[in-house]
């Protein structure tokens, strides 16, 4: 690789604070009369997709929206709990657009693009206004004003929330706006429809090929631009906090058609989840991080100590976070706390039936402030925990373990949220932008809605107004050829008729990625994974069983296609993790740490976004680098001391 990067981030000139304003003015507009002549295909109905589809349609574009869910309201965004950030500074505690920008750049460990992050902070305030106008029932103070809280260690209270169901309420707001447009006939909605390929004409994204999940019919949707809002790829790990059906197929197939994939190894692991309890386990449940404010984390000092926790005296407990990080203690940042838990379990000191768990103990807090006050603070969480584990956390310490939660990596996009394929835009968790190597709590919802309501609807107009688009014949040979490819792939999966289930392969893959490309990564481990993954993939294509036929609802077939893609994406993740020999954010390379075990960045060699270009099956992908310049926030090492 030499010299000039093929990536043009198209960051507007001028001072940081005025870039977006100025860009909005300089972008070409599509006249109101012309908007209805353009069709935009939006894939996904989560916060990003639903807000974009509704807004584009309000502006007058023709919109086709597809989702594999039976209703747009069921997208994974519905499950977000904690809240959404915005630089409103309602509590008057010193927040500002600049502070939110600064916190996000720093929290992302200096691996995000300054201009994008500043714009995100700017529009954050509009999101709250928009959501309130739609009727999102945010929490309120007695006087009727909006309530705020501080979240994820932020020093200001900038998080807006709707009980523990913020994602649900924000999504329903966007969903209702979308349903309004569907009712008016302005959005053509296709639920139960899964995008399986991207359609390129003259090098531009002009549509998607999708399978009707009920009839199995493969069909193309043709338009003038395509927007992928298909979410993250955390389920490559098999077990994660994501909804079971979340997958990477849309972005992966677009990648194979030419869209660069950036920073695939940047994944986030959340320290407080309910641990795995058996082989049947299908997903992991997040427990709010706020529990660490009062709970103390420990494991038995001695490996193999099988006594019930309450019978282990204090002297034989290891409160390892308090021991290792005396000043932060149990409130050590997400990545630190996660890695420390893995370490003690690797040493054989983990608790619970599987040995993959640590205690989060409220005994001292209950003694100090009484059970009632603890119930007041965490009652609903304790109840949820008890419902799942059948254990009473007032009496027995909770067991927790880290779990994969979010993916910062995704398709590379420029300032206009367009990928390296002209016309293909990527929004929400599916793109790589804004969060760098680590996402702050309550910032994913903000980014999804910023992209969908306030950024993409402008930038896509610029693309449409400045492109000459030829007519695409839906029955023409180019379209037919891709449809045939998609059908063949389906037939191939059905024809293997092997002996192992799709889930067994997914579980096997997940274990490898979790062990070797999870909380801590090493050169040797990643090389092992890079040898193992192709073997699992080869066995998958020779020995998987997909019962049933392709002409009906066939959930095993859906899963098989998604797992096949995870089997390829996992390899790229490991390759990316191997090449980035520094530690940063969620990416911890054991070789790159300070004397006291903290992540050690290498800005001299790695202050760039790594964008991988597909070069063919079995061929090494090509790395392009987008250099990241920090002109406003000065590079500094994160510290928890």
């Amino acid at each position, binding site marked *: 690789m030499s010299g000039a990067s093929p990536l043009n981030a198209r960051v507007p000139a001028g001072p940081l604070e005025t870039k977006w304003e100025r860009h909005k003015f300089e972008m070409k507009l599509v006249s109101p009369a012309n908007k209805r002549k353009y069709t935009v295909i939006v894939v996904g109905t989560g916060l990003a997709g639903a*807000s974009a589809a509704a*807004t584009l349609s*309000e502006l007058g574009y023709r919109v086709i929206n597809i989702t594999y*869910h*039976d*209703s747009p*309201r*069921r997208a*994974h965004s*519905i*499950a977000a709990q904690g809240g959404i950030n915005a630089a*409103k500074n*309602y509590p008057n505690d010193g927040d500002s657009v600049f502070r939110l920008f600064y916190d996000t750049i720093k929290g992302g460990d200096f691996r995000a693009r300054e201009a994008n992050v500043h714009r995100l902070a700017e529009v954050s305030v*509009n999101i*709250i*206004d*928009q959501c*309130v*106008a*739609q*009727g999102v*029932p945010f*929490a*309120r*103070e007695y*006087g*009727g*004003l909006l309530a705020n809280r501080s979240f994820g260690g932020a020093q200001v209270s900038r998080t807006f929330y*709707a*009980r523990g*169901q913020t994602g*649900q309420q924000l999504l329903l707001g966007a969903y209702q*706006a979308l*349903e*309004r447009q*569907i*009712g008016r006939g302005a959005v053509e909605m296709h639920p139960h429809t899964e995008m399986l390929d991207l359609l390129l004409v003259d090098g531009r994204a002009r549509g998607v090929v999708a399978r009707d999940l*009920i009839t199995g019919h493969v069909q193309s949707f043709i338009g003038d631009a395509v927007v992928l809002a298909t979410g993250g790829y955390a389920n490559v790990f098999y077990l994660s906090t994501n*909804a*079971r*059906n979340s997958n990477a197929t849309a972005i992966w197939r677009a990648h194979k058609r030419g869209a660069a994939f950036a920073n695939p190894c940047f994944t986030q692991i959340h320290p407080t989840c309910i641990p795995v*309890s*058996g082989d*049947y386990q*299908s997903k992991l449940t997040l427990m709010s991080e706020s529990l660490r404010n009062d709970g103390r984390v420990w494991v038995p000092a001695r490996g193999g100590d099988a006594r019930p926790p309450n019978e282990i005296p204090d002297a034989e407990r290891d409160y390892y976070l308090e021991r290792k990080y005396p000043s932060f203690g149990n409130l050590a940042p997400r990545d630190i706390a996660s890695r420390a838990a893995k370490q003690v379990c690797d040493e054989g000191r983990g608790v619970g039936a599987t040995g993959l768990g640590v205690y989060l103990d409220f005994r001292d807090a209950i003694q100090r402030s009484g059970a009632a006050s603890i119930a007041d603070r965490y009652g609903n969480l304790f109840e949820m925990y008890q419902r*799942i*584990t*059948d254990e009473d956390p007032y009496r027995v310490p909770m067991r927790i373990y880290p779990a994969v939660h979010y993916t910062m990596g995704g398709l590379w996009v420029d300032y206009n949220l367009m990928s390296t394929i002209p016309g293909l835009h990527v929004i929400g968790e599916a793109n790589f932008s804004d969060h760098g190597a680590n996402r702050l709590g309550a910032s994913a919802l903000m980014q999804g809605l910023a992209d969908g309501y*306030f950024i993409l*609807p402008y930038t896509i107009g610029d693309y449409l107004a400045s492109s000459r688009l030829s007519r695409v014949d839906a029955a023409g040979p180019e379209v037919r050829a891709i449809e045939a490819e998609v059908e063949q792939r389906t037939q191939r999966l059905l024809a293997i008729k092997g*002996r*192992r*289930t799709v*889930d067994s392969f997914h579980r096997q893959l997940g274990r490898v990625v979790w062990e070797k490309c999870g909380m801590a990564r090493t050169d040797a481990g990643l090389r092992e994974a890079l040898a193992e993954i192709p073997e699992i993939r080869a066995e998958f294509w020779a020995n998987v*069983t997909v*019962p*049933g036929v392709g002409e009906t*609802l066939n*959930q*095993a077939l859906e899963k098989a296609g998604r797992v096949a893609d995870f089997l390829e994406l996992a390899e790229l993740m490991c390759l990316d993790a191997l090449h980035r020999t520094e530690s940063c954010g969620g990416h911890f390379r054991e070789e790159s740490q300070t004397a006291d075990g903290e992540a050690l960045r290498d800005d001299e060699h790695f202050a760039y976004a790594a964008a991988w270009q597909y070069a063919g099956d079995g061929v090494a992908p090509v790395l392009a680098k987008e250099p990241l310049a920090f002109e406003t926030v000065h590079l500094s090492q994160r510290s928890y001391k």
Partner: protein
Amino acid sequence: MEFTLRVWRQAGPAAAGGFVDYPAPDISPDASFLEMLDVINERLSERGDEPIAFSHDCREGICGSCAMMIDGVAHGPVSGAATCQVHMRSFRTGDTLTIEPWRSVAFPVIKDLVTDRAALDRIIQAGGFITAPTGGARDANEILVPKDAADAAMDAASCIGCGACVAACPNGSASLFTAAKLTHLGLLPQGQPERSRRTISMVAQMDREHFGHCTMFGECQEACPKQISIDVIARMNRDYVRALATARPDRTAAAAG
């Protein structure tokens, strides 16, 4: 634990369905109901048999995908829980469990336990929104919402759209679903301008979708995984009468047609 499952299998929308019995040995009491079905499906798949189709996604009671009658009860025996939040320890080992899809003319069966619930989306299309196109919203704190109104709106807004209320209702009414949305929006100042119109069109759409009428059996609130109170229906009925009384004739006609 050990169970016998009596599961409704139906190959497609037009196919005739019927119950098939499956032995379910070696089930962990800590498995959720859906994880138990995963285990059964894994065993079926290993033999090359078609797994049981069922809807699911979040598996934490928020997306509203999962939907099944367990021994005739929508979402099974645990109150305030969706099927995915029910664990096998809630049953007795040796039990025979009968598992069926939602039964309602408005929710046709697609396959096995999967039904088509698009009728609920169409009720929202008819008016379950506040018209507030993106851009131009005023500062959020210029709209004051008393805390109790915001809390009550949130209670109603917590509906996950699973359709258990319809499945549980002897008349197959979607009143709890519709009224929950009307209550959420009708309690907020932002929702006032469209309140009457919204009520009339959503109720009209509900009728058009072949949902039954509400006769206040109250089964819906028992089945609701979010425990939404039947009070919202009383509120909807009051609003409906008021809306009809004040509506201009053309609007009523349009909404009903």
